[in-house]
């Protein structure tokens, strides 16, 4: 099966990215992914953790993780643009890249580029010389074959049928194509059959079903961008289940009718011809794409008719369907059309990113985790631990004390144990732990809509609302939880159900600290700067470590720190 490994970005964005890249990089002989990342970020086409433009790039530079994400972003675009034949590998390797003659037309277009875009979509064909070491062998002009399949399958297809059908067929063999259509027809009417066939396909590819499903994102996006298909939800294919399907449009049918009359030239046949014919086919391929896209071919008309005459045996009066930049290496094309780029003498001042991929811009490192010393002072207060849930926990700990050797082991065992806890277990647990730490804490029963917070530390002067995320809701605390904590604080200040002050923290407790620690730290800082509200974030492991130490060592805990807590804390970091 053909692997389209790319998220389906939007048509408008692809064209825009191309135009911006061309503007910035056209004077370079070739450009790297890093050059692309730099342009994409500077032109605000990429963002990183709430920052855009230069700031995003600076982040990308200082944090290895986001650096990778900047490069990933650029790579994603590079792959789509290469697939469309707008950029092509400059040398033997996949990178660096250079712009193609067709790409330049897209970049410089003033009018509607949709037609040229569509020509490039139809130009996608495999195998070709540009995708090295592919894990598939299908010989297919996918989008033409897909349109044909829609027509032969009553105009509607489900995305998985694309995987089983046109993505997994050699369309140069009519017999194979017909068998494929027959196979899909035979699947229809029974969703279980389809599912089974799809899972078998994934198995045969040694892939999980989700990545196979993901391979449909790009083709579906391209088909839709060109207006060749539209979404429709129907139960016609696999009754009674209503499924989100695709339906070919009038335009799709017309486009196929035209493609059908053309000479569809693939690489093997191309290679079988002599150099003169090949060169003529290259020129014809490129110019005819532009011609069909509404370009004025007058300046090359003579060349085209001469080439047509030369290739009449190949074409037999048909027009040519062959996109050189999507099929063969550019050296051969340059030879046929002559080098088209205007050379400039000014070497370009390249990217903001330096060669070693490391720091260029200055950004103060974000202190993701505020270390918190656990000086435990006050005595435990077990008198609040009266609920059944509290009892449960204390029992569990007592049992463990008998089995496990160290406090650390006890903490780890408990931590494991609560990994699958739902709200109904997790809220009381958190409340129990705060009680062990010496706070009067009450939790809300899940589903209690009246209460805004999941638990609250009820203090005479400085009450603290707690937003709790059980591991079954989210393992890692999210930005959303931080937002909720801020809302909890505002609600508490406004409705005064418990007494508190603005300067007292509002807490978020979850299983693990956030994944996006840098961004969470920053947003906590933003809330503090803007509203003077402090958000404290604690993970379960920390709470367990403190509580077990209180229980076993019998020492207390410096409660003052909690009221003032701001940022993330972790006892074991």
């Amino acid at each position, binding site marked *: 099966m053909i692997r389209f490994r790319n998220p389906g970005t939007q048509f408008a*964005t692809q064209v825009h990215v191309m135009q911006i890249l061309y503007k910035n990089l056209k004077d370079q002989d070739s450009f790297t992914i890093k050059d692309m990342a730099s342009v994409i970020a500077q032109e605000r086409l990429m963002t990183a953790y*709430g920052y*855009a433009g230069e700031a995003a790039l600076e982040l990308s530079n200082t944090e290895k993780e986001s650096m990778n994400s900047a490069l990933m972003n650029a790579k994603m675009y590079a792959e789509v643009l290469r697939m469309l034949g707008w950029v092509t590998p400059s040398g033997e390797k996949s990178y660096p890249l250079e712009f193609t003659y067709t790409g330049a037309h897209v970049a410089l277009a003033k009018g509607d580029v949709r037609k040229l875009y569509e020509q490039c979509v139809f130009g996608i064909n495999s195998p070709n010389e540009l995708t090295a070491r592919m894990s598939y062998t299908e010989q297919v002009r996918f989008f033409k074959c897909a349109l044909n399949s829609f027509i032969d399958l009553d105009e509607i297809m489900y995305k998985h049928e694309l995987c089983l059908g046109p993505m997994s067929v050699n369309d140069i063999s009519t017999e194979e194509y017909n068998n494929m259509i027959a196979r899909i027809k035979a699947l229809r009417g029974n969703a279980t059959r389809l599912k089974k066939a799809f899972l078998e396909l994934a198995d045969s590819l040694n892939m999980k079903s989700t990545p196979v499903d993901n391979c449909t994102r790009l083709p579906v996006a391209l088909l839709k961008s060109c207006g060749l298909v539209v979404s429709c939800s129907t139960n016609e294919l696999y009754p009674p289940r209503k499924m989100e399907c695709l339906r070919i449009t009038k335009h799709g049918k017309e486009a196929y009718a035209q493609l059908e009359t053309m000479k569809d030239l693939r690489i093997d046949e191309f290679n079988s011809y002599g150099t003169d014919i090949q060169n003529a086919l290259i020129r014809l391929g490129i110019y005819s794409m532009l011609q069909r896209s509404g370009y004025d071919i007058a300046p090359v008309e003579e060349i085209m008719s001469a080439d047509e005459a030369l290739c009449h045996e190949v074409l037999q009066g048909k027009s040519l369907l062959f996109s050189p930049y999507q099929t063969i290496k550019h050296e051969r094309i340059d030879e046929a059309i002559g080098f*088209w780029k205007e050379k400039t003498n000014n070497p370009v001042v390249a990217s903001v990113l330096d060669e070693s991929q490391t720091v260029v811009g200055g950004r103060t490192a974000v202190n993701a985790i505020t270390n918190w010393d656990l000086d435990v002072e006050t005595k435990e207060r077990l008198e609040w631990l009266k609920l059944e849930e509290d009892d449960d926990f204390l029992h569990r700990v007592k049992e463990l004390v008998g089995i496990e050797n160290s406090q650390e082991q006890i903490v780890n065992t408990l931590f494991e144990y609560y990994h699958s806890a739902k709200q109904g277990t997790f809220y009381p647990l958190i409340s129990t732990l705060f009680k062990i730490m010496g706070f009067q804490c009450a939790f809300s029963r899940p589903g209690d809509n009246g209460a805004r917070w999941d638990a609250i530390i009820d203090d005479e002067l400085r009450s603290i609302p707690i937003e709790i995320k059980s591991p079954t809701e989210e393992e890692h605390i999210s*930005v959303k939880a*931080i937002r909720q904590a801020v809302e909890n604080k505002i609600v508490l200040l406004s409705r005064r159900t418990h007494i508190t002050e603005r300067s007292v923290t509002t807490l978020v407790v979850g299983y693990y600290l956030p994944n996006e620690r840098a961004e969470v730290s920053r947003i906590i800082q933003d*809330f503090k700067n803007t509203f003077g509200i402090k958000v404290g974030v604690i993970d379960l492991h920390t709470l367990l470590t403190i509580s077990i130490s209180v229980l076993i060592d019998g020492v207390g805990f410096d409660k003052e720190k909690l009221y003032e807590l701001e940022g993330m804390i972790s006892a074991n970091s």
Partner: protein
Amino acid sequence: MQILNEKIRRTTLKLTKEIPEAVVISPGKSAFLQTSSEMHGACLKCDNPSCINLNSEYIKCDQVKEFPEDRDTRVCSTGAIDWDENLEVPVIDDSKCTHCGLCARQCPVGAIYYSNDKINICYEAEGYQEVPYNENNIHQQNVLINEIRSKKRTGCFIVESDQIMEDIYGRIQRSRLLPEKFLRNIMVGLGCNCATRRVGDVYIRMDAIYNASSGTFGVIEVEFGVDTLSASRGILDDIAVLHSRYQIDKHSNTALVVCLSLPNLRQGYWQVIKDIAVIENIRINTLTCGAMLILLWNQLDLDLGVADFYADYDSPTIRMLLNNKLGRNVQITEKVLGILEPFK
């Protein structure tokens, strides 16, 4: 090898024989153009049809230059309006059309109108001349359009009713359009600049930012579903990010939440909006798409800095605010679609 030129696919365009003094939009027919004769709005076959593409200047917001806005300039969120190359005019596919009227709001001569339960375009009327498509005439047409845009524009495109709103809401929901972009285009139709987060950008959390011509600036959260609490929380996050990272003072941020239907009372939204006003002294505006479209159909602009749409738990309705803007009573029955007050 030289770069080829795009072929000019156009042959003609149109000009008016006279420059109208005012444009009066009328329900059921194309606009009335005030000239010495009885003239009606008919398609100019614009060189740059503003019924199809927005001016890219309107979809960015100068206050936050770094905002990575979506650059898709299409006016129509469902792709219902498109250019017919053979006829050289815009055409509308009613099966995709939501009847929102955004394209009509952008047409300088009011050639687009609503009648017979669909959006129509008037292609022919008295008082126009068809001229060859060339540099000079394109220039003339641009001058003409700028001139007409500077004139007074009044009237009403669709007179709202429960039935019409139900039709439009049904079409919006079926079309599965992108709420953020639809909202952005409505804001532009209401005379604002509005930039929306690029589709698929996971790093920017705020949905959109806008500014009115007076300079009023604000952040927008769009929530077409029922999770309106996430919108009010999101707004606080947005205000904080803009305040702390982009130097937009929290009190100069006229924030707006846009939904299809106003949140129900039990969802807690209205109470939180009130809490925020009490504690932070920040008034978050709430609007529905329906209310915004009614303003737009009546050729009105939106400037929340001048007349806000603040509603909260004490009075969770925007009916009076809309009546004030319209200068008349809005003709939507109480609670219908949650456009002006919550269903429940």
